[in-house]
């Protein structure tokens, strides 16, 4: 029964979308709280370079993306502690990583046609193996976040508060960096390199007006991301539109809705 269901490419696509939503949404909350949006972008964009290298050396695309995303995330994480002008540096790194990746891909024979798939995702072509990798990565990330939740929150509030309580904020930052690289690697198939940061940030931002505590914000973000994934897969099938961008469009619409509701509520409260 389940085996038969899994043979349906739409079901596989939906499951892949849900897997990414599950991991990206709570991690995205930390990305938003810690103002790491550009950091996510740089990491995601760097992964195209990893894809090019993986294809060139005949390795798994997932492994290549993971390694390069991790290297980029670590580099940025290390530099961030040194008082470099961060937004400029991240802007330089994010776009040059993407450009180098695109140039590297162009050197490879026969993969030019697949480029769109890596840039914007190819969720309808998700195999059972891909699905296992996506869910494996998602469970890993969620488990890490759940395990370190209290320490991560404390370090996010203030590294000094964390330090005084015996929490090493650099260690927690490293955990987030690892999680980010994993999410980037598993999300490539679903939304593509260009739109991974959207899956991190938009559900979290959309959940903000609906939440009074960090836990609630993470939970609501997962729900909204799952909704966007399912509606996006369905919508792209009906409208014959690219799936990754459609998912992000739905997420953006949800964000617009919750933000307007919050603005409306504030206006009413003021009267």
């Amino acid at each position, binding site marked *: 029964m389940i085996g038969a269901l899994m043979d349906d490419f739409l079901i596989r696509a939906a499951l892949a979308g849900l897997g990414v939503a599950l991991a990206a949404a709570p991690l995205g909350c930390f990305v*938003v*709280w*810690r*103002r790491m949006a550009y950091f996510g972008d740089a990491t995601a964009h760097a992964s195209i370079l990893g894809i090019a290298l993986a294809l060139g050396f005949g390795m798994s695309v997932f492994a290549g993306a993971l390694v390069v995303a991790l290297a980029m995330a670590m580099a940025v994480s290390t530099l961030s502690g040194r008082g470099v002008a961060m937004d400029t540096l991240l802007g330089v790194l994010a776009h040059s990583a993407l450009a180098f990746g695109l140039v590297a891909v162009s050197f490879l024979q026969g993969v030019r046609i697949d480029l769109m798939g890596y840039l914007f995702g190819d969720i309808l072509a998700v195999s059972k193996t891909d699905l296992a990798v996506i869910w494996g990565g998602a469970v890993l990330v969620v488990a890490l976040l759940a395990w370190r939740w*209290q*320490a991560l*929150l*404390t370090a*996010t*509030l*203030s*590294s*000094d*508060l*964390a*330090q*005084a*309580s015996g*929490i090493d904020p650099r260690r927690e930052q490293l955990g987030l960096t690892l999680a980010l690289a994993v999410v980037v690697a598993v999300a490539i198939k679903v939304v593509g390199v260009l739109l991974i940061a959207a899956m991190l940030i938009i559900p*979290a*931002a959309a959940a*903000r007006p609906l*939440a*009074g*505590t*960090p836990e*609630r*914000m993470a939970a609501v973000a997962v729900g909204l991301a799952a909704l966007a994934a399912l509606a996006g897969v369905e919508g792209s099938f009906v409208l014959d539109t690219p799936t990754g961008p459609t998912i992000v469009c739905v997420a953006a619409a949800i964000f617009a809705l919750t933000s307007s509701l919050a603005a409306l509520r504030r206006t009413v409260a003021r009267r």
Partner: protein
Amino acid sequence: MSLVETRGLTVRIGRNRILDHVDFAIEKGEIVTIVGPNGSGKSTLLRALIGAVAPSEGEVTRAPGLRIGYVPQRLHIDPTLPMTVGRFLSLPRRQSAVDLRMALEAAGLPDLGGRQMGDLSGGQFQRVLLARALMEKPDLLILDEATQGLDQPGSAAFYRRIEEVRQEMGCAVLMVSHELHVVMSASDRVVCLNGHVCCEGQPEHVAQAEEYRALFGSGTQGALALYRHDHDHEHAGCVGGHDHAHDGCGHGHDQEHQYGATR
């Protein structure tokens, strides 16, 4: 053994030497106030004590298993991070509902558990920061200019609360102030810092030697007292073997004196 001790602590940040061979220790149950002008390294010393700043030279020794309650100078909570008062008190360790209620009552904020941190007044916010620091029953409470941004009645009330806390919990308290004229009368020791330890001693001695009366009088029930340096004084109130001349101290007291004179 001291709760925390530094020996020859030197901290350089970039090319600047923020702390220069600071020897400092605080004992169980002691209240110590660190005073000094802006940029004298007070916050850096505290951050070195909690381990947030690595010594460039010298060492910092913390008693094994030491629990520190830290109240930062200020805490910015990003507006994207929803945080109720109750949730904040449960960081970094989850607290039971009973403990939370008791902590809120002790802080004088019984009904604010569900309030967002961003919606608190300055005084309420400081009391919540203090309440959080006390949740783990610390051996050492560290306050970094905790009354900055509070008005005089507000900071007087805050200092009274600190005294209560010390009496109830018996923890050591280490406070920092850049206001030389404001130190707790209950301080066991006052340390004057300006990159290095200029001078330290009992506040009573200092106050007597300096012939200055309490600045804030009975309105604060004695929680605030005047402690004032003269430029030409002999450090009569200071104890310890400070045989070096204080010429190099350069406290820049003009501002504080002016402040005192306008009262």
